[in-house]
């Protein structure tokens, strides 16, 4: 079967039945199930330590009202992290390469932070649209600019994640194709290309983790301004 370079991004389906929900739920199957034991095994302890670390980091700059968001932000972080990392395995589908999924995550959460701010502290939320100390002639222009930057946030959130992951996967595919194709022709160049592939894979592992963290961090920042 001849695969084009974009087949890896096609939403999986089996005989017309979409499997995207399965692809999204799958990472949770790999996590240990909570037990009633106080001290569990190494994997559970590791998972707990990691979740504590990320939750503390995220909740540090937030006030008490923001701590209500701990569950959703931490679980979002774990989901994105697992989806991104699992997608680096060969022949796996990465749901976060789909713009539709990332926008579905980014837009409602950003809107929630915005509406929280407008509801609980409307003066502060509206006042933030004009930076302090702006010279009078610049005020209307700056308000429009700040409004635009506010409205573009969900788009940026979604597209950032999609673009980073899609580009990374595509690069890996291109360079691995180059490596395989060059092997019978120019073995030395092929070895160099495989070295590049190794470095790129390490980079992609880092990018997968960083992008998940950045997504959640930015949401917590938007929340900070509004809560």
């Amino acid at each position: 079967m001849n695969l084009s370079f974009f087949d890896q991004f096609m939403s999986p389906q089996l005989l017309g039945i979409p499997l995207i929900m399965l692809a999204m739920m799958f990472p949770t199957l790999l996590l240990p199930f909570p037990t009633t034991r106080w001290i569990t095994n190494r994997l559970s302890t590791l998972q707990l330590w990691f979740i504590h670390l990320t939750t503390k980091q995220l909740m540090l700059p937030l006030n008490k009202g923001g701590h209500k968001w701990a569950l959703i932000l931490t679980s979002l972080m774990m989901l994105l992290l697992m989806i991104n990392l699992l997608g680096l395995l060969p022949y796996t589908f990465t749901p976060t390469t789909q713009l539709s999924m990332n926008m579905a995550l980014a837009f409602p959460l950003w809107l929630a932070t915005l509406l929280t701010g407008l509801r609980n502290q409307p003066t502060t939320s509206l006042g933030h649209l004009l930076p302090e100390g702006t010279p009078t002639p610049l005020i209307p222009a700056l308000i429009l600019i700040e409004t635009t930057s506010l409205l573009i946030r969900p788009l940026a959130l979604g597209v950032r994640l999609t673009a980073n992951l899609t580009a990374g996967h595509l690069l890996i595919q291109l360079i691995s194709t180059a490596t395989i194709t060059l092997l019978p022709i120019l073995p030395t160049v092929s070895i160099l290309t495989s070295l590049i592939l190794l470095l790129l894979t390490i980079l992609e592992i880092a990018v997968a983790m960083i992008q998940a963290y950045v997504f959640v961090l930015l949401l917590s920042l938007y929340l900070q301004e509004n809560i």
Partner: protein
Amino acid sequence: MAGHDSGSQHQFTGFQKYFNSYTITGRRNYVIATYTSIAMLILYFKLRPKKKTPAVADK
């Protein structure tokens, strides 16, 4: 914390009491005023009566 307001040191009078770029309420009022002006502009251009040009008969 974001939203630090140093407006307590400023003593504004008149127009600047309500519209200034230092206090949080002043900034809010500027924002609301800008949004309202834009809304008024849009409404004006939408609702103004369209000029009717007389029909030209083909010869």
